[in-house]
C-alpha cells in the first residue's frame, strides 16, 4: 500500500524522508562497496531491482479481486538482506511512482520508510526467529514456515506503519493520533490482512520452486 501524492503535509513528508535516509544511505554505501569489489555484482543488483519491481507489479488474486500492491518485500529481504532491500525497495518505489503512478514523489520518503526499511527488517527478523524456533522440524517445513511468516509480517508491518503515518498526518479531533490510527488500521485491514496471507502463501510457493531447481 503506497501513500499517494499529496496525502501527507510537506513537513511530514520531509520528516519521513529524513527517517528513511540513513537506512538508504547505508544501503547505497554497502552497494557501492560491493560493486567496487566485484563489478559483476552491478548487473546482478540491477536484475534484482528489476525483479523487485516486476514482482510488485504482479496482479495476485486476493479477496477483493486482484491487487497490484504486494511488494515482494518478504522474498526480497530473504534473498538480498535488508540493507540492500532499502536501496532496491526505494528504487522500486521510485519506478512505481514514475511508471505506474503508484505512490507519490513527495511521499516517496514515507513509503520508503514503511516498505523499504520497516518491511524488510520485520521480514528478516521474522525469518531468523522462525528458523531458530523450528530448527528441529524437517528442513522443508521449517523453511516454508519461516518464509510465510517473513512475507506475512512484512506485509502487515508495512501496513501498520502506513496507518501510523496517516494517523500522524491526520489525527482524530477527539481520539488524537491513537484514535486516527485505530480508524486507518481498521479500514485498511479489510484488504491488507487477506493480502498479507496471500503474499505469504505465494512466497512459499516461489521459494519452494527456487529450492527445487
Amino acid at each position, binding site marked *: 500500500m*503506497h*501513500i*499517494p*501524492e*499529496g*496525502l501527507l503535509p*510537506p513537513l511530514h513528508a520531509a520528516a519521513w524522508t529524513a527517517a528513511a535516509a540513513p537506512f538508504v544511505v547505508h544501503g*547505497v554505501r554497502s*552497494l*557501492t562497496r560491493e*560493486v567496487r569489489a566485484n563489478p559483476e555484482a*552491478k*548487473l*546482478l*543488483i*540491477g*536484475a*534484482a*531491482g*528489476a*525483479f523487485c*519491481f*516486476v*514482482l510488485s*507489479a*504482479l496482479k*495476485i*488474486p486476493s479477496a477483493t479481486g486482484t491487487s497490484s500492491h504486494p511488494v515482494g518485500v518478504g*522474498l526480497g529481504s530473504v*534473498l538480498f538482506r535488508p540493507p540492500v532491500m532499502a536501496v532496491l525497495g526505494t*528504487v522500486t518505489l521510485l*519506478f512505481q511512482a*514514475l*511508471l*505506474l*503512478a*503508484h505512490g*507519490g514523489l513527495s511521499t516517496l520518503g514515507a513509503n520508503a520508510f514503511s516498505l523499504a526499511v520497516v518491511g524488510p527488517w520485520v521480514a528478516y527478523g521474522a525469518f531468523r526467529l522462525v528458523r531458530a524456533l523450528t530448527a528441529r522440524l524437517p528442513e522443508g517445513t521449517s523453511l516454508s514456515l519461516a518464509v510465510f511468516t517473513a512475507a506475512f509480517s512484512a506485509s502487515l508491518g508495512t501496513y501498520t506503519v502506513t496507518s501510523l503515518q496517516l494517523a500522524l498526518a*491526520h489525527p*482524530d*479531533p*477527539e*481520539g488524537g493520533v*491513537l*484514535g*486516527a490510527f485505530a*480508524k*486507518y488500521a481498521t*479500514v*485498511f485491514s479489510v484488504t491488507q490482512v487477506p493480502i498479507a496471507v*496471500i503474499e505469504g502463501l*505465494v*512466497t512459499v*510457493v*516461489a*521459494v*519452494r*520452486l*527456487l529450492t527445487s*531447481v
Partner: protein
Amino acid sequence: MTPIDTAAYRSRWRRYHPAVKGVLCGGLLACALMLPPWPAAALVAAATLGSAVAAGVPLGLMARAAAGPLVLIATSAAALLVSVGGAEPVGWAPGGPARAAEVAARASAALGTQLLFVLTTPVADLLARLSRTRLPAALVEVVALTYQMLMVLLGTAHRVASGQAARHGYRSRRAGLRSAGALGGVLFLRSLDRARRLQEGLACRGYTGRLTVLVDERPVPPVEWAAAAAPPLLVAALTLTSTALR
C-alpha cells in the same frame, strides 16, 4: 508494457528539459500542498488539466492511472468523517466533512501534477540527467540497469502469466496461488539469467565495470524556464490575493 512511460515518449512535451517540466509540476505541487486548498487546489487542477491538454496527454489514460490512487485518497478522506475515542466510542467527527473535502481536494490536485510530470517525461530522460548529479555512479548505473531490465522482465512476466492463464492457471483460488508463486520463482531465475547474459553480451562491447553513456545536453532557453514558472506563480498570486481579500 507501461502505458504511462510509453505515452511520455510520444508526448509533445518530450523535447523539453525534464528540469523545466520539474519546475512546472513541482511548483504546482508545492501550491497544492502549501497554499489554502480553496482556491489553490482548484486552480492547480485547472492549470494541470490545461497543461495536459496542451501537451497532448491522453486524458483517458490519465484518468485510468488516477483511479487507483483516488480510491486510496477517498478512503483516507472518508476516515476523517468519523471520530474515534471521544465521548462516544465512534461518532461523526465535528467539522469532518470540511476536513475531508480539504484533504481530498489537496491530494487530488497534487496527484494531477504528478501524473502531468510522468506522462510528459520519460524515465530515460530522467536517468540521463541522474548521471550529472552528485549521486554515486554505482547507484546511478544500477538504477539505469534496473529500468532496462525491468522492461524486458515485465514482458516475460506478461507472457508467462498469460501462458498460465491459458492452461487454467487462474481458474480457482488454489490454482491462482500456485501460479502466482511459480511466476515469482520463474521471474527470479529469469532475472538472474538476464544478468548473466547481459554480463557476457556487454563484455564483448568492452564492459570493464563502468556503464558510461554519452548524454547530450542542450542549454535551456530562459523563456522556457519563465514559461514553466509562470503557472505556479500565477496560482500562488491568485490564491494569496483571494485569501487576503476574504
